[in-house]
């Protein structure tokens, strides 16, 4: 049980920290959430800077331009990124965390050569076409059809929850290529260029008021057969490769930020009064903050234990479901506590009375998505109780 980072890890931390100290302020302020060209330029510009400095793709293999950092270095990386308030991965999310790693693992040499360097340099933006109105938690029920027609698949269907579709160059797309096979066996994984004819993107405003999500309607879209990743009808397995990448150290930055959010609660509580007393003097509030601190420390320790285990086995364990479940629900509790402390100031979506209401409200609203996206809390509880605890399975 050795908790201390190695000298090499600390050296890496110092170098990265020094670079971020210059690079983050130099990159300027993030554009408005409605300025899509601006957001693409901002996020991909940051990705390019990471690349030039040798910090792009910390978890990517060296032969594909990544840093191939050890898991503890990755943890350090995410800690420092969060500490420095560096730009979030943003529009590069799907390319860097889903599509890219899948192409690296399952793609042909041609596919890799074409996409991987460009994703890493921030020249190519990807989106995800997985979910459908009829296929949410039951993703394998997807119905978007792809019919082989010479050198192309003709794709027709309706995708939903597609983030950053407006500014994407490619879409990692799940389609049904064999409607007669059982639902997991007729799915294929395609790289769909977003400039093909027949693609209609309709933004779907969220409760935050942004339009990061879109519905994507596909009408006879001709996707080249050479864009098939993995074998035809083997897409479900390929997808699971992608999903596994989601469950490593990826939450580490957000966990670190969650600690900052709890500090923000304290800071706000010290600045607002109720019943003529500073809110931080409220013993019940302090106790709740204390319990949350204990739980955040527990979550972080869980992460370290999981990273130590993954470093040995090479594969994130099922425990990642427990971390995801715990992290997202804790996040919501911290956000709700902030809302309570803000009181009437929390009726504003912009800063009022010199309080950071804008951020607090955006975080609170956004937190509601966390227990839905990437497998709902209820699905995680099923996974934990069935695959880890061995309880009887739900009918499927």
């Amino acid at each position, binding site marked *: 049980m050795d908790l201390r980072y190695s000298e090499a890890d600390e050296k890496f931390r110092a170098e990265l920290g020094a670079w971020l100290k210059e690079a983050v302020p130099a990159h300027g302020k993030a554009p408005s959430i409605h300025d899509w060209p601006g957001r693409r330029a901002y996020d991909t510009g940051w990705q390019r800077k990471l690349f030039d400095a040798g910090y792009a793709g910390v978890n990517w293999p060296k032969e594909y331009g990544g840093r191939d950092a050890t898991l503890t270095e990755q943890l350090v990386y995410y800690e420092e990124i969060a500490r420095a308030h560096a730009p979030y991965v943003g529009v590069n999310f799907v390319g860097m965390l889903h599509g890219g790693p899948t192409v690296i693992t399952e793609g042909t040499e041609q596919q890799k050569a074409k996409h991987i360097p460009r994703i890493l340099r921030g020249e190519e933006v990807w989106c995800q076409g997985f979910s459908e109105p009829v296929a949410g938690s039951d993703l394998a029920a997807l119905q978007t059809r792809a019919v082989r027609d010479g050198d192309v698949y003709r794709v027709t269907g309706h995708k939903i929850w597609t983030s950053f579709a407006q500014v994407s160059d490619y879409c990692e797309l799940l389609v049904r290529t064999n409607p007669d096979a059982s639902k997991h066996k007729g799915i294929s994984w395609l790289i769909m260029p977003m400039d093909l004819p027949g693609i209609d993107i309709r933004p779907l405003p969220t409760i935050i008021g942004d339009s990061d999500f879109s519905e994507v309607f596909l009408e006879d879209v001709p996707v080249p057969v050479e864009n098939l990743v993995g074998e035809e009808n083997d897409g479900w397995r390929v997808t699971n490769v992608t999903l596994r990448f989601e469950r490593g150290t990826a939450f580490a930055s957000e966990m670190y930020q969650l600690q900052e959010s709890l500090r923000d609660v304290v800071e706000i509580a010290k600045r607002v009064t109720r019943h003529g007393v500073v809110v931080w003097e409220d*013993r019940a509030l302090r106790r709740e903050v204390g319990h949350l*601190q204990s*739980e955040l420390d*527990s979550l972080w320790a*869980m992460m370290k234990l999981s990273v130590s285990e993954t470093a040995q086995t090479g594969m994130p364990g099922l425990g990642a479901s427990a971390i995801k479940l715990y992290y997202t629900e804790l996040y919501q509790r911290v956000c709700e506590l902030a809302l309570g402390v803000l009181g009437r100031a929390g009726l504003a979506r912009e800063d009022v009375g010199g309080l950071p209401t804008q951020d607090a409200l955006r975080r609170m609203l956004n937190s509601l998505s966390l227990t839905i996206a990437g497998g709902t809390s209820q699905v995680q509880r*099923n996974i934990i109780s069935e695959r880890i605890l061995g309880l009887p399975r739900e009918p499927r």
Partner: protein
Amino acid sequence: MDFRVNEDQAALQEGIRSFCEGRVSIEQLRELEGKGFESELWSELAEMGVFGLRLPEADGGVGLGTADAVLVFEELGKALVPGPLAWTHLAAGLVDGAADGTAVVGGLDLSDGHGAPYIIEHFENLDVLLLLYADRIERVAPKALDAKPVATPLDPLTPIFEVSEIPEGEVIGGAEDAQRMRFEGAVLVSGQLLGITETTLAMSLEYTKGREQFNRPIGGFQALKHIMADCFVRQEATRAVVYAAGATIDDPLAGDVSRAVSSAKAMAGESAWKNSRAAVQLHGGMGFTWEVPVHYYLKRTRVLENVFGTSEEHADALAEGLGQAVA
């Protein structure tokens, strides 16, 4: 950083586990109801190194660290081993005979400044009583106290006595020693609470997999599965934070000891209580009977919650620390 339990630690834990399984079964515990102490068992625990575990080898101890001790106490917690385990362990090196089991040492934590009633566990079996104040440690002879037994203790395996007045004792440690004892005590007891967190979930799983209603195991109903999934998350989070506290005491450069300890004790207390309560609920009517041992765990949790700082007190300490860190 490699936070995993290493091979030596796993072997140590396995040794204690198999000892407890053979020696402290539920049937044997039932025999101890009302007594909560057995001198042969105490000697055997001493022989296993439970009390002298962290004492240097030169002083007759095993020479291991707090992280190792946490693993041992986790097993003691799982098996509900009764007795003033943490106090005697902490007294090793401070009170002659503690390490080898010839002196049974109990204690009363007065560092939080709480007043009467003063409740002392296992009083009639104690050779030495430690008084832990915020700024010192004192030792007193139990016979110097006017103690009256409480006929019906909450935990049938932890007899208690009520003491009306605390005499002055011999000072055997200063403020630093007192703080260290409080930290170490909190972490050891957190280990026991972790053990309870784990065992009560294991009991719930076993019961709900076997119990059938509506022609299916009740463990297949989502309403129950999801309770157990939450128990599992709590168990994993508690394990991580409790191990981290032990490791931080061993290597203070790895983190903030006071914070690590408070996070562990606050979390472990909450988790043991929530998982034992869930176990009562998941066992249905049987969970409310004396025959099913779930209640032993629930009751022991209260004993352990109320020593070396409650969850609430540790939460308050964490909030205090955070409040100071935020200008």
